[in-house]
């Protein structure tokens, strides 16, 4: 039962974050705005992964498998952006 409750609470948090990111988009511009909206996006997906996608119940290996690809993408982003920023 308390599982259901926690699921609903997570949902509330997600909706609040959504509201936050929309409001932020009206107030912040440029890099700051990007940082905030992406930060919030990471927050949301973190909640989803941890509670809805069972990472809180799985042990290390599964967690690595689930999050590894996300980390791997940073390689692509880092180097591609580095090229464009230093041209």
């Amino acid at each position: 039962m308390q599982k259901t409750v926690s699921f609903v609470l997570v949902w509330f948090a997600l909706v609040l974050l959504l509201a936050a990111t929309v409001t932020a988009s009206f107030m912040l511009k440029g890099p700051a705005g990007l940082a905030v909206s992406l930060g919030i996006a990471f927050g949301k997906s973190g909640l989803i992964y941890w509670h809805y996608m069972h990472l809180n119940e799985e042990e290390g290996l599964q967690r690595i498998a689930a999050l590894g690809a996300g980390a791997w993408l940073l390689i692509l982003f880092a180097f591609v952006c580095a090229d464009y920023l230093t041209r």
Partner: protein
Amino acid sequence: MTALQEWPDQADRHDRGLSETETERQSYLRAGYSLGSWFFTRDHKRIAILYLFAITAFFMIGGAAAALMRLDLLTPAGDLLTNEGYNRAFTIHGVIMVWFFLIPSIPNTFGNFLVPLMIGARDLAFPRLNLLSWYIFVLAGGFTLFVLIAGGVDTGWTFYTPLSSMFSHGNVVLAAVAVFIAGFSSILTGLNFIVTVHKLRCPGMTWDRLPLFVWAIYATSLILVLATPVLSITLVLIAAERLFGLGIFDPKLGGDPLLYQHLFWFYSHPAVYIMVLPALGVVSELVAAAARKPVFGYKFVAGSSIAIAVIGFFVWGHHMFVAGQSMYASAVFSFLSLAVAVPSGIKVYNWAATLYKGHISLDPPFLYGMTFIGLFVVGGLTGLMLAMLAVDVHVHDTYFVVAHFHYIMVGGTVSAFFGALHYWWPKIVGRTYPLVWGRLAAIFIFLGFNLTFFPQFLLGYLGMPRRYHVYAPEFQMLHVLSSAGASLLGLAYLMPLVYLTWSMRYGAPAGDNPWGATGLEWTTPSPPPKHNFDEIPVVDRPPYDYEIEMEGEDG
């Protein structure tokens, strides 16, 4: 060389092999004779055989395209083909060899056959998925062939924009779709291996007891899963750009052609390691078995496979030194490319050290292993030369590059493929082949290969650009040498086809462990029964634990 020795372990030799043996009657090969029992099988060993057939077919098609090109390049004017025809020929050669031979070659055949046997499992984690990925592979391959031959694509396997997206006349879209489909096969296979290695190791098969071949396949699978999707999405963008004038890579819409190259090489450079890592794994097995000794520095060799897989994702920019990439990015990529040399070097030096004080046999598998080491070293070191920015400016997109990656891909991976074939053939079909012929084939392949590709290093430094159908007369002599070598190489590749097929019927029964090697796969009968192990084995000793004598012995 001293007198050729006969097969080491000769169980029931009296039987000249014509009649089928008891073990064969219970083997996976005899578990059902109907077509259905093959085409709907979930047995990893049968799926491996299915892959072996498909891949051999693609190897021959890609080879035919290569033969056509080498024939055409005999004369500077290229009298045999038209410019368009030549471009299509090397596109067929590239696409087929890369995506339908090299990438699936060792993982999908020997990986499929051996990984469960080596880790003491009854099958891969997802047998149905395994069969599915074979069907996807064959479907994609057939489709690709149709597109390349019927339609004709002239972009090269790299599909560079804006040539592919706006200017080429070929069926780029269909080709992209075909390769896209093939990608699913890669991803599913990689996924299957990863889960299998993690979850299905038998009791006692700890990570530091894992055969080095399994380590290599595992590293390869990581790349397959992480890199292939990026290629898929890139191909989608190409197709969309061609169909709907999407602007992502189109400078007229503020897009950037170099972005395509970044995305493409983020897949395609790691893909090089997809092709070569399994080969490195095979050679580790061959060297250990040939020397009857544990691989020198097991932990370093195992770790270097993972290191190569990881570093391989940080170096793609070395394909773009003259493409207009930022000079600083180029410098970083150049440096990281040197870093790959470290784990590769570790492997080579450790193999050499493994031979020290071993009992070395010169049976065919080891000859292929030596071929691999030699050619891989040359390919790797010329790769270092290409990683040097100033040199790359001169030899980039010349035959120097062509020679370099053929030393790795053909000299390396294909030799290892044949090595694996000769090493595990007795396990796969349960019969032995004539060793003499095996040795001859190995030697011819070595000679033919070097004659074909060494001249191309010279051509490249002389300034012969790649993908050239018409070339300056001063290059002719070297091209003729190369073509001559190619014909020798082609014949040498056909030899095993003959005597291995012969052995299936007339070879003597191999016995469980003809090489006297360690490893769980050699504890099963040859060929293995459908379920590999009657009861799941328990491992209680390190890998490659050949007995080591402490006193000097006299033979």
